[in-house]
């Protein structure tokens, strides 16, 4: 247990990686979005997608924790299990903190009528329309999803090399296309559309969380035989 905690602490030794950079990216994106909002002379709500910027960094973090931090952890004789649990717990904490920040930003945003320039950075139509916990669940799950996807791909790369990565990427693409083709053939699109229309941000987060769990379990079973 203590070694799992140590894995998380180890990755916080350099505060930039998990705290400094996400906040910097968020701040930079925020300032740029506000500047652009201020330039648009419209007196009604303006929405940008700038708040997604840190999410892409999380994808990179997910990849790097597998390609760089994992080999380092092996050098310090850390078990794969401790590395996995420690890294995932650390990431959950970071995602939780960021979610809190997004919620707070959203509250201020509403109170100040879009920072005084009718610009909405943290609010996203539909997504943040529901109760606060639904918004929180959505942000948290999306952040976890980005990280886990990066981690999972990097695990496959570590274990099966470029070939494995290509096969799994192309394979995933083919499966998705196949599902699309099948849906067209069997005329499922209408029911799929209805299904999506019935979803709330909260239920969608639930499905995404389920997918995260599946990917996380997949990562772990792949990691157990991965070499640095």
């Amino acid at each position, binding site marked *: 247990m203590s070694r799992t905690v140590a894995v998380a602490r*180890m990755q916080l030794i350099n505060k930039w990686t998990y705290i400094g950079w996400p906040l910097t990216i968020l701040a930079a994106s925020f300032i740029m979005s506000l500047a652009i909002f201020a330039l648009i002379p419209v007196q009604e709500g303006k929405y940008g997608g700038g708040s997604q910027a840190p999410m892409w960094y999380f994808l990179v973090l997910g990849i790097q924790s597998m390609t*760089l931090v994992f*080999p380092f952890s092996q050098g*310090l*004789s850390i078990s794969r299990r401790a590395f996995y649990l420690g890294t995932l717990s650390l990431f959950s904490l970071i995602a939780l903190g960021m979610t809190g920040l997004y919620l707070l930003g959203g509250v201020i945003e509403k109170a100040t009528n879009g920072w005084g320039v009718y610009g909405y950075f943290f609010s996203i139509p539909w997504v943040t329309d529901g109760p606060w916990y639904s918004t929180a669940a959505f942000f948290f799950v999306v952040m976890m999803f980005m990280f886990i996807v990066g981690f999972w791909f990097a695990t496959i790369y570590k274990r099966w090399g470029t070939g494995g990565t290509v096969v799994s990427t192309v394979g995933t693409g083919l499966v998705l296309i196949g599902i699309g083709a099948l849906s067209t053939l069997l005329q499922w699109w209408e029911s799929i559309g209805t299904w999506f229309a019935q979803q709330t941000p909260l239920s969608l987060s639930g499905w995404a969380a389920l997918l995260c769990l599946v990917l996380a379990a997949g990562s772990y079973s792949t990691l157990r035989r991965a070499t640095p």
Partner: protein
Amino acid sequence: MNQTIVEARNLIKHYKDLNALDDVNLSLSANRIYGLLGRNGAGKTTLMSILTAQAFATSGEALVFGESAYENDAVLSRICFIRESQKYPDDFQPQHAFRSAALFYRNWDQGLADRLAEDFQLPVKRRIKKLSRGQLSAVGVIIGLASRAELTFFDEPYLGLDAVARQLFYDRLVEDYAEHPRTIILSSHLIDEVANLLEHVVVIDKGRIIMDADAEQIRGSAVTVSGSAEKVDAFLAGRSILHRETLGSLASVTVDEVLSGRERAQAQEMGLELSPVSLQQLVVRKTMAGGAGASATSGDFANDTLEARR
């Protein structure tokens, strides 16, 4: 006899087109300095990776402190193996790597790490990505020494280090080992440089152990006889010859045998010159002879020493 802390039984690591390890049997005792010698690609790193559960054997068994190290925190916490091509987190500086190691090794000595960093003139606040090859090696060497792990592996730790830094490493290793005995496995192909440090030598070639003996025992185990070719051959008839060099009518022949006092006197009477064989020469000769199919004799050699140690 000392307690055995590493035991490899019939280890085989098979890659697509080669056997990186080919039936390796090995047992290492506590509190000694071992040299794991061999050419590049001989299987040194593979063997160390499997012992530390960083990699997996195709078959066979690797026990450290009596257990398999795989996912075994009790065993892993006593091992340190920074590989020659060790990777570090992207944003890490040497100081971060040292603080990480401090989290995992209960005997970690920060004072020692600081002194070593100064000795090696390592910029501890520069990103590891930006370090030179020698500085990168220094990071690994410092983690290995300051962790004071009961079982510490050094994987070609001298790469890129200049002569002064290499000497510093050897000196600090011996000093710290004297104060804090532990088992050290030094993988190297610069044999002469480390020969004096080693208490026991394991030579691996093409995935097979071709020599496994105490350094003392090895030092006297071979001799080079030189003189006129005719006399040398007459003197050495029927002996196990490792290497033979001729220059005109002169020959210089290395035999894998210990000469008795009487034989030495006889050689002198015949006007032959006897010279000791350095560890490096011996390893080179044995490795080259092994390639020509002399593995049977070296196999006996390894078995003999195993018997002797039991």
